[in-house]
């Protein structure tokens, strides 16, 4: 307990002083980008990890968060809502869209939900693209309002965003933990295990699942605001299926359902993705190996990570206790799996 707290305190301190130690702004920039993905992953973890709802279109909410900042804090419509206020508004907007998507579809059984969310993930960015009179279509919306704090504009340094994200992640962790150990968190777990029995406990399964969708979406909306402000730009091609899968992979890699696992997973994949591969390719080129291109094997690498993780350590790097048990004991017990499967057949009304 105390050792754990000490370790956390140390980690927190290290993260706070980091930008003072490493003066390379691109590193801080990378960390800030990774931070946005950590925030995304924390949110998706609520939906998939806690409530067990497979959402394959999570990037849509990211898009909604980003675009709401772009539309409400830029020259686009001449509206300039302050960044800090948007941190409150965008999550609510995203959550509302979460409800909008969830309300008609949450009655669907797992895989149907997956495909509908996948479709939602396709059509949201597509709609932003198509409504070009409001969104500038493929060009996206640029030169968004720069946040400022006590009169200091953030400018083009990644550092202030880094701190904003650090704070948001800390809050996100706290929120996720609180949720997990609460009436709502138990209800999610129960629904995941046996929806019908959960209903007999008095759990309103639809409302509970909607809460997961809305909360998950709000994290995504929050990440969207910071990401858009930091990038000073939104464009519709940033929010494709790839992003949804990337975030899902982060959960899988780190350990679904486990907050720290999810954070580690997102950091590791971000690191590989936007730092290790491009940089090492560049190094190889500089060293004369001009035909080496690690980035081109990105998909291969992801694929291999996903497959081998699932085969050999399906509970992730830092698993949740419950998930680990589900994976391991269930693997041992075909009987239970089959029973669950046949119960699953009974489509709840």
């Amino acid at each position, binding site marked *: 307990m105390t050792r754990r707290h000490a370790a956390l305190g140390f980690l927190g301190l290290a993260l706070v002083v980091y930008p003072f130690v490493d003066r390379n702004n691109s590193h801080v920039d990378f960390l800030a980008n990774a931070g946005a993905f950590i925030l995304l992953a924390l949110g998706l973890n609520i939906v998939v990890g806690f409530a067990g709802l497979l959402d394959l279109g999570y990037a849509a909410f990211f898009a909604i968060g980003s675009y709401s900042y772009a539309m409400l804090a830029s020259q686009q419509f001449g509206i300039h809502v302050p960044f800090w206020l948007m941190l409150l508004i965008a999550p609510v907007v995203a959550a509302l869209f979460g409800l909008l998507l969830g309300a008609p579809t949450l009655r669907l059984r797992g895989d149907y939900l997956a495909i509908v969310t996948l479709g939602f993930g396709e059509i949201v960015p597509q709609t932003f693209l198509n409504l070009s009179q409001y969104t500038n279509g493929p060009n996206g919306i640029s030169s968004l309002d720069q946040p400022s704090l006590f009169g200091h504009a953030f400018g083009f340094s990644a550092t202030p965003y880094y701190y904003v994200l650090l704070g948001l992640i800390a809050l996100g962790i706290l929120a996720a933990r609180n949720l997990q150990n609460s009436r709502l968190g138990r209800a999610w777990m129960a629904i995941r295990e046996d929806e019908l029995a959960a209903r007999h406990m008095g759990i309103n399964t639809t409302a509970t699942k909607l809460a997961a969708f809305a909360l998950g979406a709000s994290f995504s909306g929050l990440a969207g605001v910071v990401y858009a402000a930091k990038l000073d730009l939104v464009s519709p091609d940033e929010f494709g299926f790839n992003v949804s899968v990337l975030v899902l992979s982060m959960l899988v890699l780190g350990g679904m359902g486990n907050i720290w696992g999810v954070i580690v997973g997102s950091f590791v994949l971000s690191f590989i993705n936007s730092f290790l591969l491009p940089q090492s390719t560049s190094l190889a080129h500089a060293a004369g190996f001009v035909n080496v291109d690690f980035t081109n094997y990105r998909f291969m690498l992801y694929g291999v990570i996903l497959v081998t993780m699932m085969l050999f350590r399906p509970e992730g790097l830092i698993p949740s206790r419950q998930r680990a048990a589900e994976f391991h*004991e269930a693997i*041992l017990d*075909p*009987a239970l799996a089959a*029973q669950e499967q*046949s119960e699953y*057949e009974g489509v709840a009304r």
Partner: protein
Amino acid sequence: MALLEVDGLDAFYGRIRALEGVSLRVAQGEIVALIGANGAGKTTTLRAISGLMRAAKGHIVFDGHDIGRLGPAEIVRRGIGHSPEGRRVFARMTVRENLELGAFTRTSGAEFAEDFERVLAIFPRLRERLTQKSGTLSGGEQQMLAMARALMSRPRLLMLDEPSLGLSPILVQTIFRVIREINERGTTVLLIEQNARQALGIATRGYVLEVGKIAFEDTAANLMASEAVRAAYLGGGAA
């Protein structure tokens, strides 16, 4: 030589040892009862015999051949029928289709028709429900179907895992009667029952499992008479 010989079986679920050195034999024509408390390992024993799980140690010899390494499908083909715990009927298939699947390993159409009639005669309720999806049958109806389905493969050794579970008293009697009849027609039976009294009532011999080990093994009559078995498994209630 016995039809089925199980020797020194060890089985694990993860790190949990479910069976420890279980040995038993079932001779041709016998009804052997396997009784024991919940979690003693009865189901695990049957699962190991029919190949649904692999024993860590020990030998399983059926009809003179070691079947310990064979898959369940092959074991069924060799003549072991297994009506599993929890009914496990094919929920989205009709009663008729379930029965057809019971005869999956058999090829003769004539034999099939004959067996079909025979099991429906035993369980007339199933005849009324031939086209119902079996997932919507009542618990007891599913139990009948599971047993009927196992009979369709004309096994030489029929293993039944708690066949009377959830059945009405009248059907419990029917089930035990049917087991006896099947046996009289030449099918050897290995029976797991919580209803130990009745099981021992029709069995020739019995084994008592306690936490993964065979604790007693004797003729049914002797087991019924044994004080230790009575106290633990036959219950104090008046019979």
